[in-house]
């Protein structure tokens, strides 16, 4: 059944920056809004909504509990990031959007997401999700061959591989039982945790666009793919960031809550 959307834009835009690395794929929704995420080894947990009854109980949406011992520093970094986004990256993003038409930008996004296949498949394997690793391989093959090197996301037309959940190294650590640790705001990159921050190193190493950096000798061309990758995500990231900051009561808390909830949901997929 297909139709166009309703009430979604507001919140959709508000949370986009928080799951940019997993925007292209997600698990086929199985109607579980209710996520109560608690792990004995996690310092960050989120309880989103009840599962058992329809009530108007004011207590049913428990406040997200987050280990944030560095809140002062995190807020300062958040503010710094806000300035960077606004005064440095926005002009760059506008220029990119001006130069490249929307259709081409979408193709570029598709291609870069497609090439991140090693990030997804390696983490599937490390988590023991062999069937999903196979589906990721199928998706990569379909998009690479039929989608002209990934420019077109042909996999959207195939139900079995259209909505595979995102995988990354942080989620692998979670699967292994490693808790978030403290919440941290990383300069430029934004919200993360100690666990997911370390995971970003794994994601970086597994992403082929960065492989040139590890080559011996200095070759200027190796900087092009990662730079292009950064450039192509800027428009959506900045638009979403603006929306999140504008719509919230406390932008810092809003982003932190969304990050924790999103990661908790991703761990369950």
């Amino acid at each position, binding site marked *: 059944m297909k139709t166009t959307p309703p*009430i979604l*834009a507001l919140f*959709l835009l508000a949370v986009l920056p928080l799951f940019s690395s997993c925007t292209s794929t997600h698990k086929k929704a199985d109607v579980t809004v209710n996520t109560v995420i608690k792990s004995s080894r996690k310092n960050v947990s989120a309880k989103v909504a009840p599962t058992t009854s*329809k009530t108007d109980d*004011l207590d049913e949406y428990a406040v997200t509990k987050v280990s944030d011992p560095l809140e002062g520093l995190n807020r300062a970094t958040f503010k710094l990031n806000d300035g960077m986004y606004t005064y440095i990256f926005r002009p760059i993003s506008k220029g990119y959007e001006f130069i490249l038409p929307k259709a081409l930008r*979408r193709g570029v996004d598709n291609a870069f997401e497609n090439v991140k296949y090693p990030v997804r498949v390696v983490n599937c394997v490390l988590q023991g999700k062999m069937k999903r690793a196979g589906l990721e391989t199928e998706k990569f093959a379909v998009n690479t061959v039929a989608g002209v090197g990934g420019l077109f996301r042909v996999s959207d037309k195939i139900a079995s591989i259209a909505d595979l959940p995102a995988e990354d190294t942080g989620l692998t650590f979670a699967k292994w039982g490693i808790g978030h640790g403290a919440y941290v705001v990383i300069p430029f990159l934004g919200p993360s945790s100690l666990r997911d921050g370390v995971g970003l190193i794994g994601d970086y190493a597994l992403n082929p666009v960065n492989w040139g950096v590890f080559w011996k000798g200095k070759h200027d061309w190796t900087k092009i793919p990662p730079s292009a990758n950064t450039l192509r995500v800027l428009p959506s990231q900045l638009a979403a960031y603006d929306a999140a900051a*504008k719509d919230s009561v406390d932008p810092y808390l809003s982003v932190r809550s969304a990050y924790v*909830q999103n990661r908790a949901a*991703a761990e369950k997929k």
Partner: protein
Amino acid sequence: MTVRQLLSLLFLVPCLCLSAADTAADAQQRLHGAVDEVLKAAEGAKSRPALHDKLRPILEKHIAFGAMTRRAIGPGWRQFTPEQQSKATQLFTTLIIRSYSNKFTLGEHPEVLYQKAATPAPGRVDVATTTVYQGSRYAVTYRMEQEEGWHITDVVIEGVSMIANYRSQLDAAFKKGGAATVLSSLSDSTSRP
């Protein structure tokens, strides 16, 4: 268990299943209606203020803003005076509607693929969708509850609940300075350009 009881039970189970299916279908239909109304209004709007004016009555019809406000504020709500509750609901409603109107991009037509809806509790349906928006696919679930008709009470995108998100902010404001701080925070948010 007597034979009569057993037969009653066997009869009741399929009836309950059918009832749940009907309920989910009703809620999903209501959501479709809301979607169609919003899009129709948006297509006819000439300017952003006009869009805001056109969307407000539609959203007020389909979204349970009162319940959303109470839940977004949380237990602190009980310490609000009736006047403060009324003011908070008014401000929160304005915040949500204004935000939505501002983000609505004319000419952008996201595609919503409806998944099977679930009925986690009587009078409540979670309508899961896959929404294709600007080339990306998102898991978006609309939580709907029946109270004088079906109304949207929460939107969950990629696991992020809108109400839980606001709760984290408004609860902090309440702990900081009670109802007055919540109201001033909401007022500040709605008055931001």
